[in-house]
C-alpha cells in the first residue's frame, strides 16, 4: 500500500550564475516556511542547506521492532552520544579528545541512536566553546524538524505583551491579533491535533481529531479541573485527519513511533519541513535547492550596503561559491543565524551585518527543564496491558503561574509535558529491586501504572546571556565557531523549585502516589528551544529586526527563525516560528513586488 510519495533526487548542479529573487539559508521550520510562502507568491528562490538530503524513511524505519535491529536501535560501535555528566563535568568542546569516531549530542541517547546518527551533527566537526551548553544540531534537509517533538502551541498576549503584564523585559512589536490569522494558516496547511480549552494564555488552534488520554491521565485531568487547572491531550503538529493538498504526507495511524524514538515519522503524519513545506514548494517550479552548502557570509554590495547574496562552502568538495540574490533570508536556527550575521563583517557592517545595535547574539533565551514528578496510579497495578502509547505524545498542562496571581519567587511561568500508561519498554524495570520470578512479576504488574511529567519553564531574556564568535576555534571547514556566555539565573532556579512542589501537589490531589521527583535542572540547551539572538523590536538601538523580521539596518535582509523572538514564553516555539515566518514573507513578497527592497 502506498501512503506517501517521495520527490525525485536533488541535483548539486544548480545555476549560480543568475541572480535569484531570494536566497534562503536553512531548510528547517523557518527556511521551509519562507520557501513555501515566497514560491507561492511566484518568486524565484534558491534554498541553501548545510546538510545532505537523507533517504529519511530508511533512516527512521519507524515501525522496526527493537529485536529486528542487531543492536536494538543503538548505533554501531564508534558512535557515542554525550551524557548529562559529560555536559556538566567537561567544558566545551565536548567531543575533543574523545576516543569515539563519532560523537552525537545527548539526543542520540534517547533510545534509537541508530535512527538519528545521520541527522544529528557529529560534534567533532562542529565544536563550540565557552559556558556549558547542550547544543543539539541537525544538518540535513529539514534540519531539526526531522526529529521534531511535535508539541505545537500558540503564544498569547501574556507573551507578546509580557512587559505590560508584569513589567519584565520587553513587549514584542506585535500582538496576538497580528499573528492569529497566520497561526490559522499554519494549522490548516500543516495539520494539528488537539482539544479546545478556551484558555486566554494558550489559544486554541483549528484542530483535527485529538489524541486520546490514558486512564491515569483522565484521572489527573478530572482532578486538575477542581484546582482550576487544565490537562489537555498533547497538541501535536500531526495531521490526524490527513491533508488533501499534500501528497507527501499520510494521516496519522497512531503507531506511536514518533514517541518512542528521538522523533521522526516515516509516513510524515508528524510535520517535517521537507514534506510539509519544501516538496510542495518544489512543485511550484520556483524553488531551487542546493544541499551540502554551508553558508558562512552574507555578502554586501559596497555601494548600497545592502545584501547581495550568500557565500558558502560545499561540505563535501570544500569548494567556495557565491549565490546571488535580491533578498537574503536567514533561517539557519537561532544560534547558527546569529553566527552567520556575526561572521558577515564588512566595512559597511563592521560588527556583523544587521548588528549596528550590538544586540546580535544577545538576549539569548530558551526553556529550562529537568524538574518533574513520577506517580503510581494504584488502580492500574496488575491490570492487563492496554494500547497507551500509539500517539504523538501524552498530555500538556498549560501554565498556571503568574497569570492572575503574583508568585513571590519568580516571574513568568511553566507548563508540564507528560504521559502515563504502557509503553514498548517497561522503564520501571530499572528501578524495581531484586531478581527472579517476583522481580519479573513486579515489573509486569506495574509497567502500565506510572504517570510522569516534567516542566518546561520560560528562561528570561537577558542581554548578558549571549553568544559571540570564538577568536581561535574553528569548525571542520575553517569557519569560526560560537562561544557561549550563557547561564540560568535565579528566576529559573526558583521556578524549577516550584515545578517540583506544584507537580507533587497535583498528583497527590488526584490520589496518585508520588514515587519519584527530579529536582535538578538539566544543562542549558537541553530543551532544544534556543531563541532571541536577533530579536525584533521597534527601536533599532535595542533590537535587530522590525516586526516583519526585517533587519533595521539592511532592508533586503530578513531573519525568520527563533532568533527573532523577544521572549521565550514557556510554550514551545515551532508553531510561532512558522506563523511569524509566514507573516513576514508575505510582507516581504509585497515589498519586493513594489520594488521597495
Amino acid at each position: 500500500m502506498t501512503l506517501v510519495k517521495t520527490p525525485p533526487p536533488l541535483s548539486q548542479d544548480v545555476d549560480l550564475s543568475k541572480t535569484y529573487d531570494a536566497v534562503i539559508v536553512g531548510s528547517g521550520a523557518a527556511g521551509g516556511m519562507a520557501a513555501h510562502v515566497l514560491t507561492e507568491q511566484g518568486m524565484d528562490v534558491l534554498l541553501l542547506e548545510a546538510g545532505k538530503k537523507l533517504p529519511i524513511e530508511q533512516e527512521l524505519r519507524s515501525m522496526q521492532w527493537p529485536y529486528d535491529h542487531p543492536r536494538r536501535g543503538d548505533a554501531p560501535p564508534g558512535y557515542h552520544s554525550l551524557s548529562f555528566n559529560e555536559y556538566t563535568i567537561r567544558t566545551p568542546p565536548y567531543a575533543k579528545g574523545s576516543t569515539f569516531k563519532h560523537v552525537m549530542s545527548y539526543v542520540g541517547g534517547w533510545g534509537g541512536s541508530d535512527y538519528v546518527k545521520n541527522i544529528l551533527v557529529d560534534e567533532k566537526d562542529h565544536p563550540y566553546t565557552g559556558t556549558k551548553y547542550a547544543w543539539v544540531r541537525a544538518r540535513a534537509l529539514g534540519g531539526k524538524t526531522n526529529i521534531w517533538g511535535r508539541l505545537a502551541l500558540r503564544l498569547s498576549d501574556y507573551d507578546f505583551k509580557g512587559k505590560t503584564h508584569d513589567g519584565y523585559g520587553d513587549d514584542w512589536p506585535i500582538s496576538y491579533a497580528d499573528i492569529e490569522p497566520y497561526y490559522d494558516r499554519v494549522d490548516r496547511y500543516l495539520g494539528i491535533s488537539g482539544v479546545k480549552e478556551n484558555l486566554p494564555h494558550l489559544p486554541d488552534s483549528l484542530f483535527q481529531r485529538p489524541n486520546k488520554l490514558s486512564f491515569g491521565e483522565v484521572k489527573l485531568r478530572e482532578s486538575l479541573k477542581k484546582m482550576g487547572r487544565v490537562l489537555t491531550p498533547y497538541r501535536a503538529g500531526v495531521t490526524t485527519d490527513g491533508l488533501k493538498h499534500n501528497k507527501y504526507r499520510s494521516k496519522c495511524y497512531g503507531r506511536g513511533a514518533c514517541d518512542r524514538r528521538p522523533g521522526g515519522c516515516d509516513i510524515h503524519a508528524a510535520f517535517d519541513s521537507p514534506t510539509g513545506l519544501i516538496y510542495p514548494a518544489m512543485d511550484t517550479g520556483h524553488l531551487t535547492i542546493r544541499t551540502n552548502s554551508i553558508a558562512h557570509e552574507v555578502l554586501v554590495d559596497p555601494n548600497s550596503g545592502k545584501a547581495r547574496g550568500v557565500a558558502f562552502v560545499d561540505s563535501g568538495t570544500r569548494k567556495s561559491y557565491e549565490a546571488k540574490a535580491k533578498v537574503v533570508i536567514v533561517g539557519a536556527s537561532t544560534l547558527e543565524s546569529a553566527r552567520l550575521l556575526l561572521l558577515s563583517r564588512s566595512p559597511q557592517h563592521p560588527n556583523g551585518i544587521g548588528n549596528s545595535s550590538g544586540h546580535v547574539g544577545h538576549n539569548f533565551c530558551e526553556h529550562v527543564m529537568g524538574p518533574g514528578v513520577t506517580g503510581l496510579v494504584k488502580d492500574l497495578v496488575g491490570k492487563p496491558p492496554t494500547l497507551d502509547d500509539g500517539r504523538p505524545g501524552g498530555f500538556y498542562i498549560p501554565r498556571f503561574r503568574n497569570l492572575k496571581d503574583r508568585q513571590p519567587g519568580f516571574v513568568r511561568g511553566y507548563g508540564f509535558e507528560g504521559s502515563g500508561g504502557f509503553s514498548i519498554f517497561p522503564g520501571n524495570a530499572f528501578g524495581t529491586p531484586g531478581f527472579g520470578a517476583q522481580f519479573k512479576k513486579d515489573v509486569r504488574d506495574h509497567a502500565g501504572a506510572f504517570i510522569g511529567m516534567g516542566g518546561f519553564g520560560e528562561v528570561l531574556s537577558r542581554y548578558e546571556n549571549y553568544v559571540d564568535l570564538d577568536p581561535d576555534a574553528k569548525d571542520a571547514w575553517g569557519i569560526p565557531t560560537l562561544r557561549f556566555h550563557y547561564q540560568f539565573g535565579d528566576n529559573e532556579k526558583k521556578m524549577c523549585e516550584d515545578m517540583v512542589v506544584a507537580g507533587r501537589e497535583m498528583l497527590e490531589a488526584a490520589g496518585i502516589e508520588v514515587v519519584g521527583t527530579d529536582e535538578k535542572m538539566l544543562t542549558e540547551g537541553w530543551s532544544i528551544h534556543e531563541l532571541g539572538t536577533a530579536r525584533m523590536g521597534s527601536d533599532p538601538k535595542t533590537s535587530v529586526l522590525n516586526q516583519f523580521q526585517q533587519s533595521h539596518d539592511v532592508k533586503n535582509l530578513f531573519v525568520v527563525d527563533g532568533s527573532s523572538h523577544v521572549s521565550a514564553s514557556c510554550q514551545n516555539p515551532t508553531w510561532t516560528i512558522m506563523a511569524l515566518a509566514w507573516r513576514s514573507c508575505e510582507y516581504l513578497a509585497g515589498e519586493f513586488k513594489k520594488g521597495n527592497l
Partner: protein
Amino acid sequence: MSDHRVDPQEGLSRREMLEVTAAALATPLLHLGPTAAPPATPILQGAPKFFTGPEFALLDELSDLIIPTDAHSPGARVAGVATYIDFRLSESPEPEQQASWRSGLAAVDALSKELHGKPLLEATPDQRVAVLTRMAAGEHDPKTPAEHFFQQLKGWTVRAYYTSKVGIHADEQYKGNVYQRGEFAGYDAT
C-alpha cells in the same frame, strides 16, 4: 516520481507473535524459576563471539536467574539475553567495558566458592539463588566487586530481555507499534 511503499501489515507479523506466544505456552511449569535446573545447552548459534564457553554458560544462567521462566512467560535464557550481550561486547570499542564483564563473572564464581566451596554452575539451584541474593544485597549502594557486577548484569539483562520478542510480546504483551485504522485507543478528554 518514486513511491515510498509502506506495508501496514509488515510491522505486525502476527505469525511471529503467535509463535512467541506458543513458545510461552509450551514452556511453563518445566522451569519454575530458581528452583529448577537449567537446560543443558543455552540458546546460542555456534560458539560465543566474545566470552569463553564456560563464561557464556555462567552469564546465561545468571541472566535466567534474574528473569526466569514462569507460568506467564519464558525468561532470559529463551529470550537469548546472553547471546545479545555476547554480541554487543564482541564489537565493543571499549576494552575496559569488556574487561569488566570478565572480571565480574570471575567475581561471581569467587563468591560462590566462598559461600559454597564451588563455582556457581556446580552449585545447587538453592545455592545459586543464595549467591545472587548476596550480590543483590547492595543493589542501591554496591561495594564489593560482585555487588557492582550485579548492577551491570541486571541492567543489561533488563535491556536485552524487554527489547526481545519474548519480552515485548510474551511477557509484556505489548499492544502498540500497530496501525490504528479506526478510532485511536484510549479515552476522550471530556
